[in-house]
């Protein structure tokens, strides 16, 4: 799969989820391939694993402010803090975006598995892939904030469906 193909799939899936479920029309931001490990970040990050003939990880990340806005639009209520409901909503947004990317990928790569989402909220955390592969990064502008979708996908060494490509999250102590 090329970066351009992945970028297009991410764009299609993300716009579809936001317009249908949240009533939000996203503005496209930049997209690029990220070779270096991401710098320490803060906010909310939701992550799912993909497995099949190609395997990898996908993440949806944004600030706490945007996570509260997205969750508010999804559930039609206001959130003053990032709480369990916000984390659950962000996990589901990630599940829908990457689930729809998975459906698009399956047209080219055959059946794939999708893990249940994990959501992280905090400050000064770093994500990296054990496989040290490239990440396709697609950014969107929403309510004055940035939403980032990252996808790392590589051919599996075996064709069996296994989780061969875990993402790793570390919390910096500084």
């Amino acid at each position: 799969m090329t970066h351009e193909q992945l970028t297009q799939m991410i764009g299609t899936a993300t716009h579809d989820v936001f317009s249908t479920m949240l009533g939000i029309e996203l503005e496209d931001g930049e997209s690029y391939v990220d070779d270096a490990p991401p710098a320490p970040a803060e906010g909310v990050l939701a992550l799912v694993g993909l497995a099949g003939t190609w395997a990898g990880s996908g993440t949806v990340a944004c600030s706490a402010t945007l996570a509260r806005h997205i969750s508010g639009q999804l559930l039609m209520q206001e959130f003053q803090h990032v709480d369990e409901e916000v984390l659950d909503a962000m996990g589901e947004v990630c599940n829908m975006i990457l689930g729809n990317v998975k459906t698009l990928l399956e047209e080219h790569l055959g059946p794939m598995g999708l893990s249940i989402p994990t959501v992280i909220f905090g400050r000064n955390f770093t994500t990296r892939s054990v496989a040290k592969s490239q990440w396709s990064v697609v950014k969107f502008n929403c309510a004055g904030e940035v939403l980032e979708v990252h996808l790392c996908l590589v051919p599996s060494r075996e064709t069996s469906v296994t989780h061969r490509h875990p993402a790793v999250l570390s919390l910096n102590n500084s």
Partner: protein
Amino acid sequence: MPVDVLIVDDSAAIRKILQRVLVQAEVPLGQVVEAGDGVEALARLKETKVGLILSDINMPNMDGLQLLNAVKADDGLKSVPFIMVTTEGGTSKVMEAVNLGAVGYVKKPFTAEQIKEKLAGII
């Protein structure tokens, strides 16, 4: 006549949204029962008789396809209409659900109109 509905999804957000969408779709709702996975759903079904089941596929403990299988194997439950509501849009999952006896399939993201169309003629 009001319909009692079981909504099965590991996301509380989606359970809440589905309940709202059923109201928007003008479904005559009776009691709405929620479950976070297939195991919990089977426990709820022992306590409450429902007229419709809406279930996700990808859930911990027991997924939606396993739940559908268990429902269809139970003489007291097998006639309850079962609709999958999931991001799993791949043909293989759709075919598996239909072969197991699901009467409908709604892909996330969804609109109230899509849910209404899917329920037309079922309830």
